[in-house]
């Protein structure tokens, strides 16, 4: 896969003397993790398709500090935050869109106290807006017709910020059958990655959290498990493998589903 994507950086925009409509905050997972990079590319394809005037920070972007803060390292978090805010403010950024609920939460809720005030959206909210305003049209509505999709609510999008409907509204446009897990929305079970768990072995117990959550999902008999977070994606993918269901069930980000439905 190497068709060229149009990904301007803020530095380039600055050199051309223009201010893009939005900044796409890629996040560390979206930049480096092999699975998450596919989500990043899918979202950029959608942005390109809809002719959205956006830019990324590129090599000027740095970890938001979410994991450090949740691991208890407030120092490291604030150092990261202050560095990022300096750059964001220097570029006079007003609107940020990100495909990572952790970045979303941190930028939206935890940067303001340190001097970073932005309007922040999750990519599912932004895409929903694009569709509403007619800037994006779903062309191949039938790509996923008849498929059963269950949506796993990322904690940092759902409970943390009360965004439950935007991702579901997008799935609706695909003409799929959305089947809810028993624990959904406010009572959704965590995938097990949050709070810096992604980077360590779990404590002793009798099961891994991602396996338990995958069992929730498999109970709905889905063809696809959709989610909106790179960490959830990894956890659920691993869970599906642990349950030996990877031949019949795929884990995809909402942006990937939409990009595929557009033949992108």
């Amino acid at each position, binding site marked *: 896969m190497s068709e060229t994507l149009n990904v301007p950086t803020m530095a380039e925009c600055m050199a051309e003397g223009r201010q893009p409509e939005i900044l796409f905050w890629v996040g560390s997972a979206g930049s480096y993790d092999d699975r998450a990079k596919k989500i990043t590319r899918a979202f950029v394809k959608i942005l390109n398709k809809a002719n959205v005037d956006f830019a990324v920070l590129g*090599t000027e972007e740095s970890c938001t500090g979410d*994991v450090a803060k*949740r691991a208890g390292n407030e120092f490291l978090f*604030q150092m990261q935050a202050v560095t990022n805010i300096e750059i964001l403010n220097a570029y006079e950024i007003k609107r940020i869109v990100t495909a990572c609920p952790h970045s979303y939460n941190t930028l939206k809720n935890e940067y303001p106290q340190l001097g970073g005030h932005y309007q922040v959206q999750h990519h599912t909210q932004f895409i929903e807006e694009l569709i509403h305003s007619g800037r994006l049209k779903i062309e191949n509505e039938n790509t996923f017709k008849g498929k059963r999709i269950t949506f796993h609510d990322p904690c940092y999008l759902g409970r*943390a910020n009360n965004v439950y409907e935007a991702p579901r509204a997008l799935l609706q446009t695909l003409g799929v059958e959305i089947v809810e897990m028993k624990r959904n929305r406010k009572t959704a079970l965590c995938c097990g990655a949050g709070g810096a768990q992604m980077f360590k072995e779990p404590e002793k117990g009798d099961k891994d959290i991602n396996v338990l959550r995958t069992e929730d999902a498999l109970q709905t008999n889905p063809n696809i498990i959709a989610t909106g977070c790179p960490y959830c994606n990894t956890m659920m993918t691993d869970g599906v493998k642990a349950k030996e269901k990877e031949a019949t069930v795929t884990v995809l980000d909402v942006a990937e589903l939409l990009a595929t439905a557009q033949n992108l």
Partner: protein
Amino acid sequence: MGIISNIVFAVILVLGVGYFVKNVKTLIRNIKLGHDVDVSDNTSQRWKNMAMIALGQSKMVRRPIAGLLHIIVYVGFIIINIEVLEIIIDGLFGTHRIFSGLGVFYGILIGTFEILAFLVLVSVIVFWVRRNIIKLQRFWKSEMKGWPKSDGNIILYFEMVLMILFLVMNATDVHFQTMQSGNVISQFIAPWFQGLSEATLHTIERTAWWLHIVGILVFLNYLYFSKHLHILLAFPNTYYGSIAPKGKLNNLESVTKEVQMMMDPDADPYAMPEATENDEEPAKFGASDVQDLNWVQLLNAYTCTECGRCTSECPANLTGKKLSPRKIMMDTRDRLEEVGKNIDANKGEFKDDGKQLLGDYITAEELWACTTCNACVEACPVSINPLSIIIDMRRYLVMEQSAAPTELNNMMSNIENNGAPWPYNQMDRLNWKDE
């Protein structure tokens, strides 16, 4: 006899209320051991939360059966206590059913109380069955052994006995029964006592009356030692509970100050700290004991109903890890009580007892099992936030003790060096574009 019993009544009343006031003072003193925190914002939203969550019990009904029963017991118990007003006046002045002069209205009032008392009795029995016969899982976790388990049952017994006493008192009150108004339930109990002489009935009625009021006073004083304290504290607790999005963790101001100094290009790294700062104790980052928490967190601990709704939704607990958010709250309260007693025993000064919340009550293993998913916060019917305590204790482990798990230390040094939690080069951050 009359005047003596009035005096006895007054003495019991003063003792009961006096001891309760003393407990409330201790409670407030202990809660104030916590750090100050600004909760003066958004008062209208806070009043709304209190009205909805504490008064309206909006979160209880998420579990419909328990929710409905709980509302009956709660409403019933509060309304029936209006009757206490009459008991107190009768007790102090030697009158009998002073309000009965209200006529029809009195009948309606007592009739309502009787119906409620009956419903409360039934609900409390169902609660007891859920706890002890059906053995609902969340009441049988490891932190519910011993006192917490007895406490749960003692409260139910108290309520059963008080309701029965109230109904028996009415049933054996010959005068009240002949009024034929308001004895909606007790008229069916009265026949059980048929054949007894009027004097015996009177003795039973008086005994029930005395036990009822003494029972209420004992129960009032039991609150402080029990999870039942939530019937009072749920109100301030839902008022002071966080109104920010759940994902937002608080900002540590002490760290902000240090980071600002470090990042300030004009700051002289060799400058002597200013004189005023010398007197101040260096700020402690995070919490290792209850005094390091803020007072809302301590209020949270006293408010916890030990219902376990948090723990039953906690992903770590559901997968067999040691972490239980309910235990975090119970431990905090137990330690706070211990610290409070220590202060009482040492003339108002806390004397180091070689113990602390971290390690002696809550272990690092529990703290590191948390995914910060907020399921506990969402589930709590009285706006308690166990996660905030977990984070404050992690902060202490990491910033004061450098005691994070090795993998997390690696992750953090990656962020420091490469601006990402993985060991990748910052310059490769945009490579995804061309892959």
